[in-house]
């Protein structure tokens, strides 16, 4: 209790409040521009935090990342371009709602459920951090392999078109993730002598190309002169939220819990949390066919999940010094610079740091609603501008966003190629979402598989020996087997009357 009071005392100083407000604005801006991510926002904050005490430094990072993950929903909803990878799971539903004239409800839902999901994540962090960490520390490469495979399976099943097309998209993503120097063997694959390909194809420029550039092609090729966003004045963003909550509170709970759990797992962050929640929500839905076409259920689940994961990622970071996602990886670096070593000792030596992180999350998610409201209203004015003017600006921003990640022109080329490939894929009803997720998870899957295979001496049965790995493995394999079995059963039933 004393540490909580001390943390409050440290946080509620005018200077620190000012820092929190400024990093909130910064996080919103970074999240809303496609290509500028929460990770980048955090990385850019590090030099600024050199001059601060540990508590305000962590508060700045927490606030910026929480705001950025929400802000990624705004361009996703209004322009079908996810501002951060965490918003990509439900970008189709959100954009469909905008086209149907329900953008305010969608944005309001994104705002309120993001804040609420983040709050749930923070509360879980507060209550369960030590216990959860004890469970997760036993996860090894086998468990991580199956978890990533489960994530991929969800992605393939999210796609609403034929399973073969979803699988092909997945395989394209996996193939691209193989490019570069191999994970465990150090052998360069599919680089064709190009130095720029040695490090592999970067995820962010590919995502910008696949979502932003391909959307631009569609936009400039259509004859309609209407602006990208609709011209209606900005309505009440909070209208209908209470009703949505009453209708979909189970989805919200599902998303928040799943999001926090996935955030807790090292290396799995808000992007995976959003995808898995979306897929689970669809699995349990009474109207799965509506997903991808404007289903608010999916949006509720995933928008809460990605914000909950932001808080969850701090559990392993604080307890073990193992980052839960890229943002916490940077935060751990900041803690070391400040002379605070993350790990069990931090709970004993500097408990006010833990409490400061928690209180910052609570503050950030509460601030999210007024800040987010103001920011959404401002961003709408941008969309009143006709698409003929907006498209070149978005293209410039896409080029800048693709360049800014690694400061290499090669990534701009990646963006262009990814955009063209994604355009052709979507013209042929091959979904791009599974490819994007496969690109994200491919390295992790292979690395964990190889590590596990080396540990087990090549035995595949070892992948099911450990209890958690066994459960995850069986679930994943049955998800794969189900559609094939169902298809065979249906064909058997269809043929049966002919036989008689």
């Amino acid at each position, binding site marked *: 209790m004393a540490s909580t009071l001390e943390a409050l005392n440290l946080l509620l100083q005018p200077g620190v409040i000012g820092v929190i407000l400024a990093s909130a604005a910064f996080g919103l801006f970074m999240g809303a521009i496609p290509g500028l991510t929460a990770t980048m926002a955090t990385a*850019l904050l590090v030099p600024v935090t050199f001059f601060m005490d540990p508590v305000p430094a962590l508060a700045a990072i927490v606030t910026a990342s929480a705001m950025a993950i929400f802000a990624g929903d705004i361009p996703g909803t209004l322009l079908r371009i996810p501002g951060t990878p965490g918003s990509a799971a439900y970008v189709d539903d959100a954009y469909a709602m905008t086209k149907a004239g329900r953008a305010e409800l969608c944005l309001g839902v994104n705002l309120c459920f993001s804040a609420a999901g983040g709050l749930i994540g923070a509360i879980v962090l507060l209550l369960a951090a030590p216990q959860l960490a004890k469970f997760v520390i036993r996860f090894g490469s086998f468990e991580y392999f199956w978890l990533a495979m489960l994530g991929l399976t969800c992605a393939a099943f999210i796609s609403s078109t034929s399973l073969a097309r979803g699988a092909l998209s997945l395989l394209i993503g996996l193939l691209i993730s193989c490019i570069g120097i191999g994970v465990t063997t150090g052998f360069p694959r599919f680089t064709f002598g190009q130095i720029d390909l040695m490090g592999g194809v970067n995820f962010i420029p590919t995502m910008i190309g696949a979502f932003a550039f391909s959307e631009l*092609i569609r936009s*400039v090729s259509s004859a309609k002169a209407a602006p990208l966003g609709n011209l209606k004045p900005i309505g009440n963003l909070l209208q209908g939220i209470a009703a949505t909550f009453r209708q979909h509170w189970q989805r919200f709970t599902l998303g928040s819990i799943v999001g926090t759990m996935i955030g807790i797992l090292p290396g799995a962050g808000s992007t995976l949390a959003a995808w898995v929640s979306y897929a689970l929500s669809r699995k349990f839905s009474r109207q799965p066919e509506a997903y991808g076409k404007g289903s608010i259920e999916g949006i509720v689940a995933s928008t809460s999940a990605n914000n909950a994961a932001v808080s969850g990622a701090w559990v392993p970071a604080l307890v073990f010094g193992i980052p839960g996602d890229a943002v916490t990886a940077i935060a751990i670096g900041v803690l070391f610079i400040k002379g605070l070593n993350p790990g069990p000792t931090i709970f004993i030596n500097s408990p006010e740091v833990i409490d400061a992180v928690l209180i910052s999350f609570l503050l950030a998610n509460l601030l999210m609603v007024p800040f987010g409201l103001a920011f959404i209203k401002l961003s709408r004015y941008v969309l009143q501008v006709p698409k003929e003017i907006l498209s070149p600006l978005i293209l410039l921003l896409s080029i800048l966003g693709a360049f800014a990640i690694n400061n290499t022109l090669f990534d701009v080329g990646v963006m262009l190629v990814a955009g063209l490939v994604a355009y052709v894929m979507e013209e042929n009803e091959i979904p791009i979402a599974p490819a994007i997720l496969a690109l994200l998870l491919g390295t992790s899957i292979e690395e964990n*598989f190889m590590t596990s295979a080396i540990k087990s001496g090549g035995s595949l049965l070892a992948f099911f020996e450990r209890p958690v790995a066994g459960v995850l493995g069986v679930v994943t394999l049955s998800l794969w087997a189900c559609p094939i079995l169902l298809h065979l059963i249906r064909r058997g039933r269809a043929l049966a009357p002919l036989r008689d």
Partner: protein
Amino acid sequence: MRVNDLVLGLASLGLGSAVIVLAAGFPSPPQQAYGPALFPTLIGAGMAACGLVFLFHWATTSRGSTAVSLPDWWRSHSARLNVAALVAAPVFYLLAVERLGFVLTAFVCLAALLALFHRRIAFALVTAAVVAPLAFAVFTEILLVPLPLGSLVEPLIR
């Protein structure tokens, strides 16, 4: 550019086979059961399998469909021009930015695209002239992204 299941199937089959062939050339580490060739081989096999599914689907349902059909907007001259310009802009950026620097390259791209899409030349030039330096300032000063000054332009500034 839509293709029918025959073309898609052949393309998947071809790509999958190419991947398997390339992967076969990867060395296998002596003491490990699996090497760098494993995953690409599995991926190639999966792609080939998808290709076979598409071919089977084509053979049983849609034999009569056209192989390659161009998108609807191809018929419109202005739409073709728009898309060509949209694709040409990043290509131009890639080729020119190191020499001309970000501000000039971005100005040219923006002005050209705005003029083409919006058809008001003065507006295009003014907007590009404002946005290009502004973007440069924001990204280099605030976000600390090292945008190129341009090898032709830099000596003039320094």
